[in-house]
């Protein structure tokens, strides 16, 4: 039998203290953790007794507690926000039972290369809230880039600015519930039928998370007709690792094509 101690803290500070210890990790939905070898893990902290499932859809900002499952997020957004980038990205993530179990906190902490959450969070300039007194808040970009922020810390939630946008999320999969080879997230803010601000994120390339800034710049001030022949391959240095069952060059071409198609889709084109 593996020697693992389980902890069931009743307060955030108790949980925070526990996960700061070496070899002790928190568990949200557990869908990823349960598949990993538990070597080196001496303790698991269950977060079920903590109030980390709050959802706040305010006028200015939106907040999702770290124990919200993908299904919780979809249910909260379904009535009025089906076009939101987070709804579009999570709607087909994993499969129905997994969406009932995968939590935002777990997904944010592990951020696998096939993540359907990372693209939207980067596009939305989301913040990761960490348990501390007072609470700490970091941009998701910093959270990804600074490993120290991920060690021994407890995520309490995700927040971002609520703003109108047009969005698309593409998953490169062979069947719906496949793990994507890559994802493309597009978030556009419009002014007078032209693109005023663009956020394009490619997840799963060699850099894992790539913001496509040159393509973003090329889109500003344009409408759908003016970008139909944009050559993303020329603008961006997109590279993939060779993966079993596929080809890096093929993925590069696919990604470039799907980036443009996703932009056009977000603009309402039938592509």
């Amino acid at each position, binding site marked *: *039998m*593996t*020697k*693992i*101690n*389980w902890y*069931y803290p009743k307060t955030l500070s108790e949980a925070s203290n526990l996960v700061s210890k070496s070899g002790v990790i928190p*568990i949200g*939905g*557990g*869908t990823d*953790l*349960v*598949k990993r070898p*538990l070597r080196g893990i001496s303790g*698991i902290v*269950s977060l*079920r007794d903590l109030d980390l499932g709050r959802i706040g859809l305010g006028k200015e900002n939106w907040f999702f507690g770290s124990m919200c499952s993908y*299904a919780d997020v979809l249910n909260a957004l379904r009535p009025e926000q089906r076009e939101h980038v987070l709804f579009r990205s999570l709607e087909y993530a*994993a*499969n*129905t*039972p*997994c969406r*009932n*179990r995968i939590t935002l906190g777990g997904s944010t902490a592990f951020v696998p290369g096939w993540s359907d959450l990372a693209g939207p969070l980067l596009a939305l300039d989301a913040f990761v809230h960490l348990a501390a007194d007072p609470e700490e808040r970091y941009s998701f970009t910093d959270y990804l880039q600074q490993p120290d922020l991920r060690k021994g810390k407890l995520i309490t939630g995700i927040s971002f600015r609520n703003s109108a946008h047009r969005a698309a999320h593409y998953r490169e999969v062979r069947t*719906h*519930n496949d793990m994507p080879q890559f994802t493309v997230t597009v978030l556009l803010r419009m002014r007078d039928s032209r693109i005023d601000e663009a956020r394009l994120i490619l997840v799963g390339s060699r850099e894992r998370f790539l913001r496509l800034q040159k393509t973003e710049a090329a889109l500003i001030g344009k409408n759908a007709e003016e970008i139909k022949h944009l050559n993303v391959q020329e603008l961006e240095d997109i590279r993939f690792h060779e993966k079993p069952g596929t080809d890096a060059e093929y993925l590069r071409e696919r990604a470039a094509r799907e980036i443009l198609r996703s932009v056009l889709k977000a603009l309402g084109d039938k592509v």
Partner: protein
Amino acid sequence: MKTLVTINGKSIELRFDPDETLLHTLRNHGYTEVKSGCEEGECGACLILLNGKAVNSCLIFTATLKNDNILTAAGIGTLHEPHIIQQAFVDCGAVQCGFCTPGMVIAGYALLQDNPDPSETEIRKALSGNLCRCTGYVKIVEAVQEASKRLRGEGS
């Protein structure tokens, strides 16, 4: 370790190892209708309802449970008193080898609880986490459609 849960309406004390998944705990306690397939959340053979939500029991550590409510396919109906959805699977020929059937029944049951009149697309999406190597899914989708009609009082 041990924990108290309700399984198919009965209060049960589960005993388990700290790294044990709910799939194995359930099977060790006699709930063999919960099938062991891929054990990584891909096939849906181990599907159960946990507090009303369809989840893969292979992806849950039993140690995370406390006073939770579990429903397996055997808790929905019995051989002599099958639930409408179970009867629909039989009537529509949606069962071949039967290994995926408990999970499929649970997925369909969960869908119809939330959405009594789902479209074919919604049914296929709800069953997207359940794999079947025999049927090609057509009969399974028909069975859920038939169950939906019967539950709404429209079926044969």
